[in-house]
């Protein structure tokens, strides 16, 4: 396929031990891929392979038809990765962290847009609070705010709903639906199904 993300016969090795092999899938614009699997099945490793932090032991990743190597600039410019760790420094405030992350990665730093996204994720009142004072769910929402504001086509999200309450879950599902409606792609690891409404969703089960 020429548009979107595809993986061909991916194999992953962590610390010398094989995690998975022979993994292939495609994700076209407008699709959400939900990655399910038991602990240790390699969900997080798959995301790291896709964004280029981890080189694949076998196989290859393709973005818009062209193969992607670790450190590849083409993918870096179009992908947003949300790891288990939020990527925010505890001593800095919400605003300061967002501003740094967006200046670094390139994204929408307009004050009005930032405020609007924070408001939507119920972080509007926390703008000047240091991040270590936020709860885990609030820190997850902050990481999500960064992803939203980065204006990237490909979202690679590792357990984005960890620690979120039902309100947060709903807000996230809505953001995800809007993202793919705009033609974006999302690969999301999760333990439970995310309701993305009418968006085309496929499930990748790591246990098989």
């Amino acid at each position, binding site marked *: 396929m020429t548009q979107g993300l595809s993986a061909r*016969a991916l*194999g992953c*090795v*962590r*610390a*010398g*031990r*094989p995690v*998975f*092999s*022979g*993994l*292939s*899938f495609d994700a076209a614009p407008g699709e959400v*891929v939900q990655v399910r699997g038991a602990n240790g099945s390699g969900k997080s490793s798959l995301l790291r392979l896709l964004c280029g932090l981890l080189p694949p032991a*076998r*196989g290859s990743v393709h973005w818009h038809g062209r193969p992607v190597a670790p450190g590849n600039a083409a993918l870096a410019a179009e992908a947003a990765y949300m790891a288990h760790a939020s990527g925010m420094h505890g001593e800095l405030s919400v605003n300061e962290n967002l501003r740094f992350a967006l200046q670094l990665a390139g994204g929408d730093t307009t004050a009005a847009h930032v405020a609007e996204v924070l408001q939507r994720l119920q972080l509007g009142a926390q703008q000047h609070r240091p991040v270590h004072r936020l709860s885990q769910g609030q820190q997850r929402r902050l990481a999500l705010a960064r992803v939203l504001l980065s204006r990237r086509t490909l979202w690679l999200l590792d357990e984005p709903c960890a620690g979120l309450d039902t309100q947060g879950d709903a807000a996230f599902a809505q953001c995800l639906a809007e993202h793919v409606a705009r033609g974006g792609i999302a690969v999301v690891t999760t333990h439970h199904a995310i309701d993305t409404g009418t968006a085309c*969703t*496929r*499930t*990748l*089960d*790591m246990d*098989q």
Partner: protein
Amino acid sequence: MDTLQRVDATAAPRGTGRRGWRRLAAPLVFHAWAGRALPWFAGLAAVLAVAGLYVGFAVAPTDRQQGEVYRIIFIHVPAAWMSMFIYLVAAGHAAIGLAFHTRLSPLMARAVAPTGALFTVIALWTGAAWGKPTWGAWWVWDARLTSELILLFLYLGYLGLVSAIDDPRRADRGGAIVLLAGVVNVPIIYFSVQWWNTLHQGASVSLTAAPAMAHTMLAGMLLMALACWAYSIAVALARVRCLIVEREALARQWS
């Protein structure tokens, strides 16, 4: 929602079709070759060592100034040469491994490094043993000995790093970076230590041999140097065979 199944990979064929020397780049082929070559190098090392020690301790004449003590150069100088040479060899393997992604090169670097560290210790030890009767002190901060000491730290840093990292890929490539950083630094360190030595003390106490060497002394040192070289190769081959077996056992888990 459709469920995507995982597709079984078709097994990639093992490296085939290489000719001649390049076949040896495959670890399993090298393992077999090393097993055959090992006894030859070990035998060569033994023969050369006996010959070198005989020349050094029985044939070479007594030095006029230093008496019998000078004979320790027959161990000290070859050990010092080998310690530096082996570091260059390890750095060479590191560079090849980084540039060409060969599987064997990081293993070869890991195999030769402990022997290099050993020779460095021997050079330091024999240097001190020579210094005591000759100049009255166990350690004289001679430029060469100090450089050897720093070389020992470089070896220990590399060995410490590769043994502390569990992930083989990170250990190989991280170790290669350390070796290459070290090899760039070695001339700078050597130059700076020379500079430091001449700056701070006028008397040049050099542990290199006397200016005019009898032919027999030179022959003895050369024989010992070749013996050390053959020994290093034999030990490195033995070590790399163990490393190859370990790595292949890990790789077998794929199939």
